[in-house]
């Protein structure tokens, strides 16, 4: 009798040991349900590890029969009186957020949050000092400090404007009539980005419900910063510093934020249309490239353009900037997965492959046409590959990334040389030639290569063309308007004497040391 009771007790304890982990894995928690329901694009990561845990038992390849555990089960089956776990674990109701709101703090994903904090820092690193060095090395010695000051000041002013207005009108749903075109006012001055310690509640965005909204807002801020900073390259060495500040302020609010809303906020009209832009091929690069081209036309060429050699100050700085851009782009693209998951890993992989292919592609094109592979060409090719893969980073396979990089390298080389001469604009550092052309190439190729198994939908070249065209047209018109408004406040260009003297001394009373 004693042995019988002991056997029953042993059987019950064994049963509990075997079943407990299974129950833990199959009991979905509320945050998980909310997360999966709220992701705009469902991840296609492999299913949870429950089937995998059972694999060794039923695997034919191992040569072990499925009843391998039978000899170990020496105890009889638990009696019927033993309480069995319910067949269906009650699932909390799935809550789908359609706008930012408060959730329980323990519903956040720690790994996702940590990765997004890291990605945010990486993207800021792309601008400070990445873009500052990249551009600073390419201008003449007398205007290097002005370029760096313009990038730094742009970062500061865009940050405050994003906090005050930009984030709200870009990443919250708008009113019903204007909803597809511009966001609401609920997050002006970052209102509602709360962390309530006592109640253990935290605000999350409906676009990224696994991380605090403060982190998501900061991540998107770094995108707004770098987009505006990219435009600086088109008007270096001649735009008045005060005009730069006014232009950047208006441009961020009137051009960047609405386009971000169109493409990335689920109620945006391009998002509803099905335009794919994983990390900003159109929002960031086509937009910045087009704005740069308009600036170049509006300001006119630098004095002596086309007649004098404008020797770059130090291409070593440009190389250092390129390295920072390449590394920072991992945060840019892999961070756009808004999770530390398989898609982020894929985005990082394709980003690196496309950058390498772009560098080699540009190098070969330059070698063939000019007879020399230049360092600046390699740096430009890296950026071209990175730009092109940006809209596709989470949607394509690594093999496609090679195509993105190779096509972009050649296309952007043409954009910065042949097309530049056709356009006859002093787009000084080739913002349109590299970012505009690379963004267009990447957006269209996304329509070709986007895989349904990754993106959730099949890519459509027509849809991508509509998206890219709409962004180009809006950016063209609104940038021209913003420049005109700016010109009503201050003169856009420095005087001829100031331009000859250099913007470092005339705009900032500083001069580069030896």
């Amino acid at each position, binding site marked *: 009798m004693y042995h019988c009771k002991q056997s029953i007790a042993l059987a019950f304890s064994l049963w509990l040991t075997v079943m407990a982990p299974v129950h833990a894995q199959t009991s979905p928690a509320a945050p998980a349900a909310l997360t999966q329901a709220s992701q705009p694009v469902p991840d296609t990561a492999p299913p949870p590890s429950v089937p995998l845990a059972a694999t060794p038992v039923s695997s034919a390849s191992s040569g072990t029969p499925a009843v391998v555990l039978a000899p170990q089960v020496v105890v009889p089956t638990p009696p019927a009186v033993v309480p069995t776990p319910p067949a269906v674990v009650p699932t909390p109701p799935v809550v789908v957020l359609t706008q930012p709101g408060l959730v329980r703090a323990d519903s956040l994903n720690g790994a996702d949050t940590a990765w997004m904090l890291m990605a945010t820092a990486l993207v800021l690193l792309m601008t400070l000092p990445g873009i500052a060095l990249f551009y600073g090395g390419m201008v003449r010695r007398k205007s290097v400090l002005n370029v760096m000051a313009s990038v730094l000041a742009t970062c500061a002013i865009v940050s405050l404007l994003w906090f005050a207005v930009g984030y709200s009108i870009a990443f919250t749903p708008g009113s019903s009539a204007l909803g597809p075109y511009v966001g609401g006012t609920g997050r002006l001055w970052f209102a509602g980005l709360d962390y309530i310690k006592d109640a253990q509640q935290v605000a999350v965005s409906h676009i990224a419900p696994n991380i605090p909204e403060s982190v998501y807002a900061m991540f998107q801020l770094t995108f707004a910063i770098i987009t505006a900073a990219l435009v600086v390259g088109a008007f270096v060495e001649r735009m008045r510093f005060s005009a730069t500040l006014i232009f950047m302020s208006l441009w961020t609010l009137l051009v960047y934020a609405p386009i971000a809303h169109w493409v990335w906020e689920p109620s945006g009209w391009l998002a509803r249309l099905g335009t794919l832009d994983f990390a900003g091929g159109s929002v960031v690069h086509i937009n910045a490239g087009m704005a740069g081209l308009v600036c170049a036309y509006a300001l006119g060429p630098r004095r002596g353009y086309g007649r004098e050699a*404008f020797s770059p100050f130090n291409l070593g700085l440009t190389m250092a900037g390129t390295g920072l851009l390449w590394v920072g782009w991992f945060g840019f693209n892999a961070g756009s997965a808004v999770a530390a998951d398989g898609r982020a890993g894929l985005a990082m992989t394709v980003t690196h492959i496309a950058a390498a292919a772009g560098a080699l592609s540009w190098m070969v094109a330059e070698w063939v*046409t*000019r*007879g020399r592979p230049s360092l*600046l060409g390699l740096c430009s090719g890296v950026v071209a590959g990175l730009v092109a893969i940006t809209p596709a980073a989470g949607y394509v396979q690594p093999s496609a990334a090679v195509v993105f990089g190779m096509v972009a390298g050649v296309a952007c*080389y043409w954009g910065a*040389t042949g097309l530049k*001469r056709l356009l006859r604009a002093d787009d000084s*550092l*080739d913002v349109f030639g590299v970012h505009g052309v690379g963004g267009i190439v990447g957006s269209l190729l996304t329509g070709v290569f986007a895989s349904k198994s990754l993106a959730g939908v099949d890519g459509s070249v027509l849809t991508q063309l509509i998206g890219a065209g709409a962004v180009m047209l809006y950016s063209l018109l609104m940038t021209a308007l913003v420049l005109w408004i700016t010109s009503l406040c201050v003169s856009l260009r420095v005087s001829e004497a100031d331009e000859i003297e250099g913007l470092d001394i005339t705009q900032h009373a500083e001069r580069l040391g030896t």
Partner: protein
Amino acid sequence: MLANEKIAIAAHLHVLLRRKTGRVTDTEWMVSNREYALEIVRFAREKATQDGHADLGIMANRLADIMALTAPAQAAPAPRAAQAKAAPEPGFNLFTASRSFGDSESAQAPRYVAGLR
């Protein structure tokens, strides 16, 4: 000879040198410093011979005349090393490939004029 005429010829040579060889010169210094003018004339004639730029040779001779420079009418043959350097790159025809990119002009343009890349 008027100073303006000297400057005009020097400026013309300056433009030709920049366009054909990529060398940037100082026009004013060319008409005021004999040694500098002599060196520019020598360089221009050498390039005219090497690369077949007849107009460059003509303008160099005009500057030499107007500056009363005593320089040989025919430049000395280029050193072997320079000839080897001037030989076309092997492989793809640069001009054909350049045209396919719409960039035949920039392939021959001086570096950093009308573009960085």
